[in-house]
């Protein structure tokens, strides 16, 4: 910043000393020059601020959210399920009543395709600040609960805030999505294993994607219609479209009986 030294006008205090190397003659600071210097400084500050904002969005929100989400999973009090393959039930499934409170955490989601350590809490509601930015995965209110006839619809960020659905586009047909619903108070603890059927990219107004029977609004679901739907933004960092993945219930299993085999398999 040697250019700015010229602003100081106390100049003459330095004694002349011939042993010093000759200094460049001082440039006179003009008003225009001062304005340009000020503008340059403001641009540097703006640039640094913008860079910091990007770092905050792309990195810091993840750090905070993953921390919080890990804690929420712990708070849910899910005990380690027996490490045996329990029997796979395919009939009528036990269903927890939908929590009345926004932000109530009632379960977890594991998706082997996203990595063996992928384990995220699911909260009630899709409120941006209180659910999606903190809890991560949010259950669309008034859609079915896991295991029920209808569509258990879940939204999540694809980037930032822990990005629970960052890898949604990597899901393939028949990939497992394992949901575990836990309610300590009523001793409810059940696995639901869904298998991916299809994915679609739609504009954000396509609420029929989370209809009880996906993409068939108004149709009443039957015993064969136990769906799960994930929605995330598409393309990444954009709000232009939504990436929507549907899955269908394969089986359920009380957590006291064992652990779904899908959780110990590596997806092909």
């Amino acid at each position: 910043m040697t250019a700015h030294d010229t602003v100081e006008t106390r100049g003459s205090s330095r004694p002349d000393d011939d042993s010093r190397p000759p200094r460049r003659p001082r440039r006179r600071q003009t008003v225009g020059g001062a304005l340009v210097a000020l503008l340059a400084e403001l641009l540097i500050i703006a640039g640094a601020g913008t860079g910091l904002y990007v770092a905050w969005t792309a990195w810091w929100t993840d750090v905070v959210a993953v921390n919080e989400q890990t804690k929420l999973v712990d708070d849910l009090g899910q005990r380690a399920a027996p490490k045996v393959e329990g029997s796979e039930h395919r009939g009528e499934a036990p269903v927890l009543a939908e929590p009345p409170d926004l932000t109530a955490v009632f379960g977890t989601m594991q998706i082997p395709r996203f990595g063996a350590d992928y384990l995220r809490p699911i909260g009630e509601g899709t409120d941006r600040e209180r659910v999606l930015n903190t809890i991560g995965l949010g259950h669309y209110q008034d859609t079915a609960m896991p295991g029920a006839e209808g569509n258990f619809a879940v939204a999540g960020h694809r980037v930032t805030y822990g990005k629970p659905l960052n890898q949604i586009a990597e899901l393939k047909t028949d990939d497992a999505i394992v949901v575990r619903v836990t309610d300590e108070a009523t001793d409810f603890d059940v696995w639901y294993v869904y298998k991916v059927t299809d994915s679609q990219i739609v504009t954000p107004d396509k609420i029929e994607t989370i209809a009880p029977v996906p993409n068939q609004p108004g149709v009443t679901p039957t015993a064969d219609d136990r769906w799960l739907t994930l929605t995330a933004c598409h393309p990444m960092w954009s709000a232009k479209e939504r990436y929507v993945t549907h899955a269908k219930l394969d089986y359920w299993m009380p957590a006291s009986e064992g652990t779904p085999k899908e959780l110990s398999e590596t997806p092909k």
Partner: protein
Amino acid sequence: MIFPFVWRVLPGPVALKVLELLVLLAVIVYALFTWVFPWIAADILPPPDGTVDVSPSP
């Protein structure tokens, strides 16, 4: 100008000034991360949230 002004008002010898500058920067970054950026994200530039909705989604 701003930077020379800050450098001038920081008291002490150069080593201390550098230390003060680092503390000052840390405080500024903390304030930005804790209050300013969350406010910008919530009220000015909401990032896409991935929900499908009838209302126009930001």
